[in-house]
């Protein structure tokens, strides 16, 4: 249905390109105009960067804008905002809140970050301990978050806090948008085993949030958080990449460059190639079936598969390098990384160790596949219906 809308959308795109010629127009200005014409998130309501259409229209818009040479860099610069934050606001925020936050989010004038994980709450996000206590029209927040990308650049943070410690863990949570420039917010780089700091630790020390920045009801934080996590796991391992691209492509390159000809290593390379191609074809099939409205289990294995594969492939690539595998080009000076598509093999070997942890550990993904997809029973829960304060932690 609504292919009828294509002409209308195309017209708006033509209009945008005519009024703000890509290349000749400042990016922020262009994105602003794109938002105003409802071409930012086509499925959003009119007036909030959308046209009330379906998602596929946006895919079409993006393709046409790219063809016209317009920048879609904002989707990367403000990844968490545009890919996840917008969805959360669209689903849970008031019109006033949307009006306040969506446009500068899309133009990248305000960068967003996500504040869920805590040292004590990794897989068990709902076990988080960051407290928010009401004080008149404000909330006072204390606690620590971790694994926060972009926190050092962000204006706004999506934060889940515990507002009722005596309620069962999932019920005592409330979701806020926090001003990362507010007093009491401290952001520290979190260096990882590669020597780089993609992430941050964020400390809240009596940070005050106006109640108007609360998303959805008090105690509804988990519901909002789930919306966010859904978008995240779709983002990871969901899309279909070209054949022999990514780390398997790198492994093949190294194989060819080194002139390696050991049949044993060749068989291993081909084994990994086959696994990677199967994962790729699975994503391809899942996407096609999903867009045809036939969702199936093939959609849920990507994150898990790529976590394993990336780890195995990069470990193998380092082995392919032989003695050179013991080197670490560039060294370990602790620094902020530049955003790059693909690491060189040694750093890739280290970086991919986290693929089976970040965005849901492989153990959790296996539970999800087992319980939600295959319908296997859950384990006995000791933390379900007890007040959060009484749940053993450490």
């Amino acid at each position, binding site marked *: 249905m609504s292919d009828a809308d294509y002409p209308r959308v195309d017209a708006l795109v033509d209009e945008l390109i005519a009024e703000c010629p890509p290349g000749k127009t400042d990016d922020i200005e262009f994105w602003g105009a794109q938002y105003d014409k409802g071409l930012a998130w086509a499925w959003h309501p009119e007036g909030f960067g959308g046209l009330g259409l379906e998602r596929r229209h946006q895919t079409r818009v993006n393709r046409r804008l790219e063809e016209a040479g317009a920048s879609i860099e904002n989707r990367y610069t403000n990844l968490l905002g545009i890919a996840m934050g917008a969805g959360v606001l669209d689903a849970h925020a008031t019109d006033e809140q949307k009006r306040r936050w969506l446009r500068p989010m899309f133009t990248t004038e305000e960068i967003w970050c996500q504040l869920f994980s805590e040292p004590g709450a990794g897989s068990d996000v709902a076990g988080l301990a960051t407290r928010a206590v009401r004080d008149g029209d404000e909330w006072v927040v204390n606690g620590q978050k971790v694994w926060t990308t972009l926190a050092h650049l962000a204006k706004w943070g999506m934060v889940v806090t515990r507002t009722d410690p005596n309620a069962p863990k999932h019920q005592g949570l409330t979701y806020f948008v926090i001003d990362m420039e507010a007093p009491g917010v401290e952001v520290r780089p979190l260096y990882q085993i590669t020597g780089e700091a993609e992430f941050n630790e964020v400390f809240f020390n009596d940070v005050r949030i106006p109640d108007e920045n609360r998303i959805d009801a008090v105690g509804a934080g988990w519901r909002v958080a789930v919306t966010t996590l859904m978008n995240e796991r779709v983002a990871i391992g969901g899309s279909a990449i070209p054949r022999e691209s990514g780390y398997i492509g790198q492994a093949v390159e190294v*194989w060819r460059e080194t002139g390696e000809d050991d049949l044993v290593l060749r068989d291993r390379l081909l084994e990994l190639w086959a696994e990677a191609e199967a994962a790729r*074809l699975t994503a391809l099939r899942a996407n096609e079936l999903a867009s045809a409205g036939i969702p199936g289990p093939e959609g849920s294995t990507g994150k898990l598969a790529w976590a394993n594969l990336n780890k195995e492939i990069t470990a193998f690539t380092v082995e392919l390098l032989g003695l050179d595998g013991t080197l670490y080009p560039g060294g370990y000076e602790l620094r902020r990384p530049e955003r790059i598509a693909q690491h060189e093999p040694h750093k890739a070997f280290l970086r991919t160790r986290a693929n089976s942890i970040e965005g849901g550990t492989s153990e959790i993904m296996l539970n999800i596949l*087992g319980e939600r997809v295959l319908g*296997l*029973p859950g384990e006995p829960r000791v933390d379900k219906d007890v007040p959060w304060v009484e749940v053993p932690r450490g």
Partner: protein
Amino acid sequence: MADPAISVPYAPTEEQDLIRSTARQFLAERIPIEKVRELMLSDEGFEAVLWKEMAELGWTGLVVPEEHGGAGLGWVEMSVLLEEMGRVVTPGPFLASAVMATAVIEELAGDEDKEELLAALASGESIATLAVFEQPRGWEIAAPATRATVSNGGWVLSGMKRAVLDAHLSDLLLVTAGADDGIGVYVVDAKGEDVTVEQESVLDPTRRQATVILDGAVSRSRLVSGDVVAGLTHALRLATAALASEQVGGAQRCMEMAVEYAKTRHQFGRPIGSYQSIKHRCANMLMKVEHARSAAYHAVRVTDDRAELAIAAPLAGALASEAYVWVAGENIQVHGGIGFTWEHDAHLYLKRAKASSLLLGSPRHQRDRLGLALGI
């Protein structure tokens, strides 16, 4: 590396859905697992009447062009049918005749032979099988030791072929042999003189095979149109893709058995599926099965693109073989002791899985073919 253009959609057509539902119903009614077990212990391993019924359903000529009396359908439809057969370890010469022999005839037969042979196979009146392997290892087909020589105007064959699928049920053998003018595929009457068919005792008693000894056996015709080795290779790739679909069907069923059991079987007061060791294994079954399925589906969708099939077929063969063997084995483990008993069906799948993984080339061998196709 450029991506292959896949024109055929993954979403099943109405026709494909119909083939699936018909197959599931027919197999459930006519060859339920009890019947499989009965046939498994019988000398022949199959019954002619079932072949007749499969023919009436149009299965024996599924990929045979309509002008030759077939259904004129494609390999995607074939994969749907084979997936269903794999689910219930259907016995009989279907893979041998309707897939492998048919593909070779399509590839290498001249118009006359096509006319005659395909019609016979499609109607179910004849069963044919491929006699190409001579060595236990390597799955070498290009240089048969079997010789074809001219004797009073016709071709006669001498040599030994092994792992000839369901030869004891077949009327026609398609035998590769070398003559002075090179390798050819020769059509031999399986029941004829100077042909000895020795049924072997096999790991998977639901798919029989024989050693065939040809001692001056007369060939009624030979199939040599085009590049014979290239044609045979392509036909075997089609067979590999088709077999992969059957393997995916079997693996899928093993996963379902394991999951069903894990939900109901209790130990220590809990369903065993609530333990991560079992739950995660089932989840890994799902991932392996879906990956194998993706490879198999891809292979049967690119059969018209010979270069891509050279990649897709061994890819599917390797992944489907490994997935099926692993899932069938883990299904026994999930079932525990009962899964190790003769009375439980789990072993039928393990045996089918292990044997199928060696039929057209071991996974390691398939990866070698994959590497050759990729230039790795």
